[in-house]
């Protein structure tokens, strides 16, 4: 029997790694990959709570599925934006995309 807290600890660590990636990476695609890591960390939590606390309800699995759908839509739109920006400005470095800056 694996304790629930192990899953939660793993998910917390994974989420923090993702946060670091989002804040520190230069490349916009890499930032998006870090966001995927964070979404996955959330998914582990959802499924772990479902397995340990409410195994007879379906909400855990349903929410995990919805997270999958959101992650797919997010990746699709995010990468499309990156490609569009790349085409206009020839760069995918997040720092260089600063049209809104004074």
């Amino acid at each position, binding site marked *: 029997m694996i304790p629930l807290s192990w899953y939660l600890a793993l998910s917390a660590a994974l989420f923090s790694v993702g946060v670091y990636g989002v804040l520190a990476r230069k490349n916009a695609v890499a930032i998006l990959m870090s966001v995927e890591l964070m979404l996955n960390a959330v998914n582990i939590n959802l499924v772990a709570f479902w397995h340990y606390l409410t195994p007879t309800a379906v909400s855990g699995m349903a929410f995990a*599925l919805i997270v*999958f*759908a959101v992650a*797919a*839509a997010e*990746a*699709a739109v995010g*990468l*499309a934006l990156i*490609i569009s920006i790349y*085409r206009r400005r020839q760069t995918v470095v997040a720092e260089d995309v600063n049209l809104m800056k004074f």
Partner: protein
Amino acid sequence: MQESWIFIGVFLLIAGIFPATPIILQSVILGPKKSNPVKNSTYECGIETFGDTWVQFKVQYYIFTLVFVVFDVGMMFLFPFAVAYGQVPAFMLVAVVGFLGIICGGLIYVWRKGALRWV
């Protein structure tokens, strides 16, 4: 059910070991080892390779993959429904028909806009 998954895990390992064995056998033991730079250069119709490997790709590839991702995720919602199909009352098909209709509407829209054309 855990036994099934143990079998799958073991099978994945073994399915990796089986093809790896002849590859290692050939590259480490049986095959000759007389390499030279010409032999190891990349194959390009006989002329020297020029330029970067990273040629610019068409965005078309990305667009088709995009449509695929959306459908792929949509299908994952249909599998639980298909499993439960025998037990759901008929009127609940409305949800699935609506779901499929909306995604199909998206497909028809991008089709009409000409995004599904290979140019």
